[in-house]
């Protein structure tokens, strides 16, 4: 198959951080991550841009709960709520 098979997640909890992603590659940028008990994912809004989504900044430093899809190492959220 490939990494593109989406896995539905609901009420996934984690802390939101910022950090570098894709160092040295054409994807390098500062990205928003969600640190969960099961791993660390690049967080995006499903309806938002893949790069420089300023609307995600409001979650940085917070514990959130998220519904959406895991696609490889990327979490595409269609609901993100601060819970702390």
């Amino acid at each position, binding site marked *: *198959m490939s990494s593109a098979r989406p896995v539905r997640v609901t009420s996934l909890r984690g802390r939101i951080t910022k950090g570098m992603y894709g160092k040295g590659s*054409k994807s390098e940028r500062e990205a928003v991550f969600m640190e969960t008990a099961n791993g660390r994912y690049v967080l995006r809004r499903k309806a938002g*841009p893949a790069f420089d989504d300023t609307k995600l900044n409001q979650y940085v430093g917070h514990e959130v709960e998220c519904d959406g899809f895991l696609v490889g190492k*990327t979490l595409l959220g269609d609901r993100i709520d601060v819970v702390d």
Partner: protein
Amino acid sequence: MYDKIIVSNRKSLVGKYGSDGFEEIENALAKVAAADEKRGIRSKILYLDDKTSMKQIRTRAVINALDPRENKQAIDAVFNSINPHYLMILGAPDIFPHQDLDNPAYRSDRPDDDSDVQAWGDLPYACDAPYSRDPSRFVGPTRVVGRLPDLVGANEPSYLISLLNTAIEYKRLTREDYKSYLGLSAEVWQDSTRLSISNVFGNANKLLLAPPSGPDYPDGELRNRMHFINCHGGSASPEFYGQHENSYPISLTTQSTIREIVEGTVAAVECCYGAELYDAVTLAIDQPICQSYLQQGGYGYFGSTTIAYGPETGNGAADLICQYFLQNVLDGASLGHAALMARQQFVGRNAQMDAVDLKTLAQFYLLGDPSIHPIDEPSATVVPTDVAPADAERFFRAERREKMKLAGDFLTQTKPTASKRVPTGKLRKSTKAALSNIAKFAGLEEKQTFIAYGVKGAPASKGRATKIKGTPSRYHVAIGTPQRDVGKKVKRGVAIVAKELDGHIIGYRIYHQR
């Protein structure tokens, strides 16, 4: 015998589209074969899960449709038995899987640097070497391969039928039809892209930068038939992005390509994930840009499944393999032959294949019918009137394939590769100092950690005295963020690849953030 084999999986197609949908696909495939016959190409559809068909080529049918090893073994049997001039894979990866090559640039201890555990792609299907996840086994491609994808997650076949219609109705166009181009680059990469575009088209006068260009092109630039795009891209995203300092405006979207891509368009796209066939149906987002190109009559799209690499200025990695593909199309090659030559040229150009080179080779692949010749290039060879044109073309094609086979075998036998990590061990003081200096020069910490990769496959010189070794003993690779950018919103990372020969650092390359 057959010139072109179309491979797919019957059970997967029926499971996805039902019997009626499968029948529609079968009808369209019959028309593809009939249209190919008129062009002098004998085509055959082969379902790799069909026991009878597979028995005829003396191999087992594929049982697990999505198993890369089984599908690779079945494709190898197709080439051992039929040895077609063209292989067209029919279906997206939920019908026919990509091969699961390991990404040699991935580090489990630093997964945020390059998060791709696998460098998915179709490269191994184009190689004689048996199944393996080690990309260094596949540096000698010899086969002409392309993929005509359906939509991942779809339950009705209209998308695939539209692509098959393109394969049925395609016409060779003139060189003049491909004279105009779309050259689109993130503003920060304009030096590199200008060089790439000049190499392909002889000038870079029409290069568009994003920003300010995009996502819409009201002046019709998307209607040019040759496209070279060097922007950012993200996984499962129907958008590409430009870049100016710390801003990443949208440069192209699936929506902005609709009714703008003209029949016959051929694209080479460097963007990360630029040819990722993600599941837009389940995600309820727009289909991938690459699939929009093909739906609108685009003939071919050469792109990457995963994160791609290239230097900030000058050309390397993704820049080169994309350039070669378009140059070969402009020279009159079929799409599949252009992709095969691009792969061989890319391997041939590198003295050794380091981790970044190997990932580049593994991740770029062709979407489109590989037998399509976009440009009708007159041949200097005259065919006597008593020889059927199709027979003559078949002979010339066989000649070209033989040449590519020899070139691929030569690369397999001679190209040193560095895909496996080896213990760094205790470095000489001078080696340590050299690596520290390079790290410092690149803006990294002097104590930057380097990972060592062993070089294998270096041919021993025979029959002549050799005073100077032509192959390094190891590569040292470091990826990091320059100190000058720490604390900035936009950090421009670097990947350093340094060559070591018997304890001495003899050269290095620095890949900058693209």
